[in-house]
């Protein structure tokens, strides 16, 4: 006979805590926050047998206070820490900040710098997407898909290293252009490696995207209809996989995207398979954009407008700029009160917009499908937590 554990039901619990009602059928599982299957985030899953009844994502584990930190540093010194939320996509997360500060301070960017920024942003999108694809592969049990993207990513990192001088956190964009000009002979090396990279990622079709085992795993799981995608406010690959033709690069072109031919990839199914395929198609499109930008880029000229040492906004002013990052529309809302430090920097990342869809997608799915659905959202916990 087991001894009954005495429970003091009369004792008051601290505010915010409540005793869980034990149910015979429903079990609560904490996936994360240190579980590799969830990233640095906890998903509270309630399951009935093998089926998910309810899923509650709990972000905030890696919150770093980026927005508060931005209020005590001037516009230039904000650059190294504002790219920390997504170090794999550091150019794209910095892009809206740089565009916003340029609007606030009122400086023009040289034409060549705009092209260099587009090339760096597209290379960085490939770096991010390859990393994401590697994780998506390994959590579906496809270890080849972990090795290949992680290896081919090196081609793009090498190009970025030649351009910016750092492998991951580049601190390359700056209000007024870019920090340094691209090295001599970079165009040839870039073209050669991008062409080879494109050839490599096309090979992923046979082993991964056309693989019947992957399709069986991901097709018709976590279906998000186009109405729901709009209603929940999702962006980026999640939105485009649900059949909505929306890409910030096309709808609100910034820098020189207007002059480049950008094709938006749209799939109609809205399931995990479509959501995982869109970033791969976007990488192929990125290769196209880089080739166009290399061709149209002015061969010489300045890449940076000289700034005053302590750039300030003019009086009380605010600006909101957004770009298409690897995970969707990333925006920055910068408010200035005429001081060298911004009054407020609000980061609006794509990851956080997409997370809201998770509870709707997981309801009724098998627990084994959770990684397939969760990672297909292209979610990056550190970015969402800021």
């Amino acid at each position: 006979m087991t001894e009954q554990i005495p429970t003091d039901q009369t004792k008051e619990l601290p505010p915010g805590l409540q005793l869980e009602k034990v149910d015979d059928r429903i079990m609560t599982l904490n996936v994360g926050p240190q579980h590799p299957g969830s990233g640095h985030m906890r998903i509270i899953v309630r399951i009935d047998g093998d089926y998910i009844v309810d899923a509650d994502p709990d972000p905030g584990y890696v919150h770093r206070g980026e927005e508060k930190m931005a209020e005590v540093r001037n516009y230039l010194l904000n650059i190294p820490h504002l790219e920390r939320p997504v170090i794999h996509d550091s150019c794209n997360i910095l892009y809206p900040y740089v565009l916003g500060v340029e609007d606030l301070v009122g400086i023009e960017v040289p034409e060549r710098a705009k092209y260099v920024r587009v090339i760096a942003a597209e290379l960085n999108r490939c770096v991010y997407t390859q990393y994401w694809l590697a994780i998506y592969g390994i959590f579906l049990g496809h270890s080849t898909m972990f090795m290949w993207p992680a290896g081919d990513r090196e081609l793009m990192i090498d190009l970025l290293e030649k351009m910016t001088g750092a492998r991951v956190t580049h601190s390359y964009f700056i209000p007024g252009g870019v920090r340094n000009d691209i090295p001599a002979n970079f165009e040839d090396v870039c073209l050669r490696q991008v062409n080879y990279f494109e050839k490599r990622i096309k090979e992923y079709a046979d082993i991964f995207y056309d693989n019947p085992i992957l399709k069986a795993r991901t097709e018709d799981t976590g279906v998000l209809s186009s109405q729901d995608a709009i209603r929940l406010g999702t962006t980026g690959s999640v939105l485009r996989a649900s059949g909505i033709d929306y890409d910030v690069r096309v709808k609100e072109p910034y820098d020189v995207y207007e002059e480049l031919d950008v094709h938006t990839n749209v799939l109609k199914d809205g399931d995990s398979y479509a959501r995982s395929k869109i970033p791969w198609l976007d990488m192929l499109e990125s290769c196209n954009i880089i080739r166009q930008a290399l061709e149209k880029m002015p061969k010489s000229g300045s890449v940076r407008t000289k700034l005053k040492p302590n750039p300030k906004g003019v009086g009380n002013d605010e600006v909101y700029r957004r770009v298409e990052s690897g995970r969707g529309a990333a925006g920055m809302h910068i408010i200035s009160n005429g001081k060298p430090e911004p009054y407020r920097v609000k980061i609006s990342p794509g990851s956080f917009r997409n997370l809201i869809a998770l509870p709707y997608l997981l309801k009724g799915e098998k627990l084994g499908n959770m990684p397939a659905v969760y990672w297909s959202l292209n979610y990056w916990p550190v970015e969402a937590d800021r």
Partner: protein
Amino acid sequence: MGTATGIIKALNSGVKHLAVKRFTLRYPEQKLKLVGDGYQFDPATGVGIAGYKGRHMLFHDHCTGCNLCSIACEGVAEAIGMVKVPNTWKHNKKAIMPQIDYGKCVFCGLCVDACPFYALYMSNDYELSSFTKEGLIYTPQQLQVKPNVQQDAEIQIDDRGATHG
């Protein structure tokens, strides 16, 4: 496409890679060739010169002890502290020079951008590990030593794939 065909195609795609060259940098033996001698900045034009952002190089004959690199680092990593140097030059009347703590440095290079006297550059040296925390703090004397690096591996692409030379 049937299931069997799809699986055979996927397997075939992997088998083909037996003939593809291995794309791995055998690191301690091979080191990737980096562009130039490291990140530099030209205050006259206000534009940097492309290069790797590694350990700093301090030119004692240019440094005036103006503190600007330290001020720039205050908002980023607080890695640069100014220390007294025993020998004094005419141009460095304060006799202070930057000392860099690589336990804190994030290698953003904004200190290089801040230097108006061409005194602080970055070099290709990235092997800075140390057994002690004190070993990560580089004094002005250590910073003026030009690093001896041998980096020559480059990505080469041919029909059979990419390799590191």
